[in-house]
Each structure stands twice: as C-alpha cells, then as structure tokens.
C-alpha cells in the first residue's frame, strides 16, 4: 500500500506541464532515434544529456526526458527491423528474424502493430516490476558499508561486459582505463592535483558527459565511415495500422513469457536489452516452434523479442536506481547525467528524493501509453521519417553533439576532449573492447576510491576489512564465479575456432 501512495505522489510530479511536455517529446524523439538505423539508444541518450544541462532542467525532469527517449528507442528499433530488415538499434536484431519475413508476406501492418503491443506489454511488466522490486532492493542495500560498495563496484566492472562472446581481459582493461581517467584532477580528499600536468582545464577532472558524447556519438561517425555506404533497400509499404485481433491474441503467451524473461535479463548485471531480446526469442522458439514456422514470419517470433527487449530496458533501471550500478550501456549513460547533477543513485535516493524516483516511475507508466499511441495509429510518421539517408543524418547528429557539449561551458577545450574521446572510442571498438565498462569506470571511479579510502580509514589501514562482511565476501565470490564462467566460455570459443581453422 505504501507503494501505491508513493506512486500517487509520483503522478503529481509527472503531471506537471513541463514534465508532460518532456515526456511527449522524449517519446517522439526516442521512437525516431530507434527507428533510424545507425542511431541507437546509447548514442541518442548521450547526445541529449548536454542539452538537458544547457536548459537547466532539474534531475527529475532530465531523468523523465531521458527515460522517455530510452523507452522510445526500444519501441522504435523494431520499425526498421520489420520494414527494411535492418535493425534500428542493437536490441532489435532479433525482430528482423520473423518481422521482415512477415512484412514480405504482406503483413507489415500486422507485424508493426503486433510488435507495438508486445513492446507495450513488455515495458509495462517491467515498470510494474520496477515499482515493486526497486524499493525492496534499496532497503536491502542500506546495510552496505564502504567495503561492500567497493566489492559491488568490482562486481559491476567484471559483469557489465556480459558473459558470452567477450574476452574478459578486454572488459576489465576497459573498466581500468575508465578508472584511470576518473583519477585525473584534484584528489577530493587530500587536494593533490593528479595527472593534470598543470593544465587548469582538467583540475576538475574530465567531465564524463563530454567524454560520453565523444565515445558514443563521434566514434559512431568514424565507424560508419568505414562501412560501404549504399542506398538503403526500399522499405516495404504499410497499408493501414489496425492489427488483426486474432493474430494479436494468438501471441499473448509469447508476449508474457518474453516480458518475464526480458525483465530478469534486464535486472541482472551485464545483460541489458540486447541479451533480453535474444533470450526471449530463443526460449520462445524452443517452447512454440512445433511446425518450423519461426524465421519465416511467425507472429510469436516478433512478439517475444520485442516484449523481451522492452522489459529488459525497464528492468535495467532497477540496479541503476537502487544500487547506483547500471546494468546496461544506456543506463550507465543516464547514471552519468545523475552524477553530474549531484544526484547519487543508491538506496538513499529512495529516502531522500522520493519525488525523483516515483515521479520517474509514474512517468514511465504514462510513457508506455504515449508510446503505444505513437507507435500504432501514428506509425506512418515514423515510416516516412525513416527514409532520411545516413549521409544527411550523421552530420546533423555531429552538429547537435557539438551544440550540446559547447553549451555546457562554452569551452573549446571541451570540444577537443570530445573529439579525442571519439578517436579513442573508435580505436577501442576496433580492438573489440566494449566502451560501456570504460564509461562505468569513469563514472564510478571517484566513488569507488572514496569508499575504499573510507573503509581503510575505519580499519586504520588494515586491508582485511575488505573481506570482513558477508555481503562483500558474497559479492567477491559472485564476481569470481562470473569471471571464471566467462573465461571458460572464451577459451571454449577459441578452441572451436582453432578446430574450425584446422579443418579448413
């Protein structure tokens, strides 16, 4: 019951004219960013953050805007998956498998409406889960001491890269590079300037937002420049938007299963929306693919991954808000914004700033309804805007990134830092090093060091304090188990590749 009254007060925050306006524009912009191939949730949210600073929005309003954009990209990603066979963003990859074949059979309108409803179901399940579980997790996390937080951060770095298909050394190296960058600037405890080389621009440290826009937006331009740019295949035309009810009803279990699996994947560290949709799709295929229709335009193969990726993106907000440890790239970027506005997510956030938490949750309920309307009756707007070619889109993205970063401090130095991080991000991506752990290190580095030093002050220099509480021992055990598992998987994949090379 307490949750309901908190949620009611959240709605009064969310219903203010400014927040409503941000909610609607966020949903629209988000769907558009999701629908445009080449712009994903991380880039979209990263570009918008400096603008929220420039407009002087408070933390609640900024978070409402960015979450609306985030949810919108998850809805929008499916549009180009279905009509172009090009995923609008990474989590929408699975939707191409059955969505495009469905559209080719002349059922494009059905596929779009169906996936819109599936997105709605998935996201709503996630928001309900968020309202129920985030406060519980926050209450549990209140018992965390400094040493436990240090352990939690180590676990976050180890797990954020995901479990499969990555070299754990690269994930950890990326996080360490982020931590190295985080120590640049004046040490907040002793006042010693570190790694500043006497340059007063970096005494305050590297502004994470500037680094983020460079890492995600500028490096994306460099990556796209090396792909062969050709005219996109023509989109399959859509006639009408009314879904056929029988198709919709036939997928209800696929949607529900997809939502639950996606939600769990989202809450777990290191999984995020992409894994959520992959897991939902493969589980649904195992459960219902009796006649071999999956991959040939089975509606259930559209519903499950869409419900899954939307549920995962909502679920990923839970660890970000209640522990201060994001579970995905986009939530890491949102964490950057909160930290820059001096809002430290974590258990205390729920006690000290209930307006922010519950205003956000209430907004997410409304964002889902808004997005359902935008994505079903108004789908025509997005299918038309999707025709913007890449050569016209990316320069505008670059210009908006520059405006955002420049308007934070009117500093040319910041623009140079942004470009430098773009080049760094590009090189790391070429080496197959994920940028998300780096961002996490950059963001959490300061807090991680503070917690370590606080713990050591409490113990008067005795390192054993780090493993004295059950919480930290459990967290280290989980971290080691996770790293062991992913190292084992990496070695197995390596062996398989070698065997294949030998066979050829």
């Amino acid at each position, binding site marked *: 019951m307490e949750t309901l009254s908190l949620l009611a007060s959240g709605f009064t925050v969310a219903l203010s004219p400014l927040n409503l306006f941000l909610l609607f524009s966020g949903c629209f912009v988000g769907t558009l960013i999701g629908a445009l191939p080449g712009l994903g949730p991380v880039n979209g949210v990263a570009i918008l953050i400096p603008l929220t600073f420039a407009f002087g929005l408070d933390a609640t309003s900024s978070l409402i805007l960015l979450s609306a954009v985030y949810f919108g990209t998850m809805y929008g990603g499916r549009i180009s998956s279905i009509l172009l066979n090009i995923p609008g963003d990474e989590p929408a990859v699975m939707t191409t498998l059955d969505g495009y074949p469905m559209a080719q059979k002349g059922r494009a309108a059905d596929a779009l409406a169906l996936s819109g409803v599936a997105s709605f179901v998935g996201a709503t399940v996630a928001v309900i889960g968020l309202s129920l579980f985030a406060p519980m997790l926050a209450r549990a996390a209140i018992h965390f001491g400094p040493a436990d937080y240090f352990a939690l951060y180590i676990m976050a770095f180890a797990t954020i890269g995901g479990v499969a298909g990555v070299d754990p050394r690269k994930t950890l190296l990326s996080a360490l590079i982020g931590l190295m960058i985080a120590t640049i600037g004046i040490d907040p405890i002793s006042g010693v300037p570190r790694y500043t080389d006497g340059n007063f621009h970096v005494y305050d440290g590297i502004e994470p937002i500037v680094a983020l826009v460079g890492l995600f937006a500028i490096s994306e331009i460099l990556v796209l420049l090396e792909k062969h740019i050709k005219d996109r295949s023509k989109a399959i035309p859509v006639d009408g938007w009314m879904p056929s009810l029988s198709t919709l009803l036939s997928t209800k279990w696929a949607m529900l299963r997809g939502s639950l699996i996606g939600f769990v994947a989202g809450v777990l560290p290191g999984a995020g929306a992409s894994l959520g949709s992959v897991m939902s799709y493969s589980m649904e295929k195992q459960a219902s693919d009796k006649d071999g229709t999956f991959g040939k335009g089975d509606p259930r193969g559209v519903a499950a991954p869409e419900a899954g990726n939307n549920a995962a993106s909502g679920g990923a907000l839970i660890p970000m808000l209640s522990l201060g440890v994001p579970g995905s790239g986009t939530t890491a970027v949102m964490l950057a914004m909160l930290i820059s506005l001096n809002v430290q997510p974590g258990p205390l956030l729920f006690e000290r700033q209930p307006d922010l938490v519950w205003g956000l949750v209430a907004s997410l309920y409304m964002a889902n309804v808004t997005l359902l309307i935008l994505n079903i009756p108004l789908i025509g707007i997005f299918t038309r805007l999707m025709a913007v070619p890449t*050569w016209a889109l990316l320069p505008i993205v670059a210009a908006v990134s520059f405006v955002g970063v420049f308007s934070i401090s009117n500093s040319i130095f910041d623009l140079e830092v942004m470009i430098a991080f773009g080049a760094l991000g590009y090189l790391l991506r070429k080496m197959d090093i994920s940028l998300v752990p780096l961002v996490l290190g950059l963001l959490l580095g300061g807090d991680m060091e503070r917690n370590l030093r606080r713990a050591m002050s409490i113990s*008067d*220099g005795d390192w054993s304090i780090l493993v004295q509480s059950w919480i930290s021992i459990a967290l280290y055990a989980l971290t080691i188990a996770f790293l062991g598992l992913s190292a084992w998987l990496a070695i197995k994949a390596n062996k398989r590749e070698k065997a294949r090379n030998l066979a050829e």
Partner: protein
Amino acid sequence: MISTRLLAAVIFVVAAVYTYYGNTYTVSFGDVLGPSVFPVIVGVPAMIFAGSLVVFPGGGVQWAGRTHLIRQGIALAVLLAYAWLLKPLGFPLATFGLIAALAATLGGPAVKSIQLGAAMSLCLWVLFDQILGLPLAFLGTIFGA
C-alpha cells in the same frame, strides 16, 4: 594481430607511466591511504591485462581500406576544424561548413550536401538560439562580434 598487439602495447606504456606517477603523489596528512594507492591498484592490473593482450592478442583487427581511412581522416580534420573555427566564424557559418563537409565525406551528392548544410545550420541556430534560448553567436569574432 599486429594491430591489437600494437594498441595493447600503447595502453601498457600509458598504464606504466600512470602507475609511476601515481606512486609519486604523497601527502603527510589526511586519510590512511592517501592519493597514491588507488592509482597503483588501478594501474598495475591495467599493465597486466594490456601486457597479456600484447603476448596473447585475442582476435584481430580489420582495418578499413585506404579510401575509407582517408575519409575517416578527413572527418576527424573537419571535426577539429569546427572546434577551432566555431568562435571565429560564428555558429551558422561554421556549422554550415561542418554539415556540408561531413555529408560530402559520407558520400552525399555535392549539391545536396551544400543545401543540407545551409538549411540545417540555419534551422539549428533558430531552434537552439531563438526558440530554446541557448546563446550561439550568429557572427563570429572575425566579424567583430
């Protein structure tokens, strides 16, 4: 393989220099740990991981072909030029150059790229400066503004 080794070696050297300098920060007051321990905790494992990538590089790097590399170089130069010319030229003129040049680099037709630059630089200025109230100089310092 070579590229991964080379880049990992660069990261290794940076981490080594970082650790070396980290070790030099000392204060005689404050907390138990002081400002130098955390950089060492971070720098040493970074050296280990980077070093292991030099010795056992996992996965190779596929570089783009020569024309693509040239285009990437041009794009970086355009971005840097924009950073340096933004204040002298003012927002609309500099942004016109940025958008037109990047669009052409990305393979847009020349005339259309110029049209896009002209239209979007003005639109963005009106949107951000006039409607949303972010101050963006219309004329730059070389015009005496």
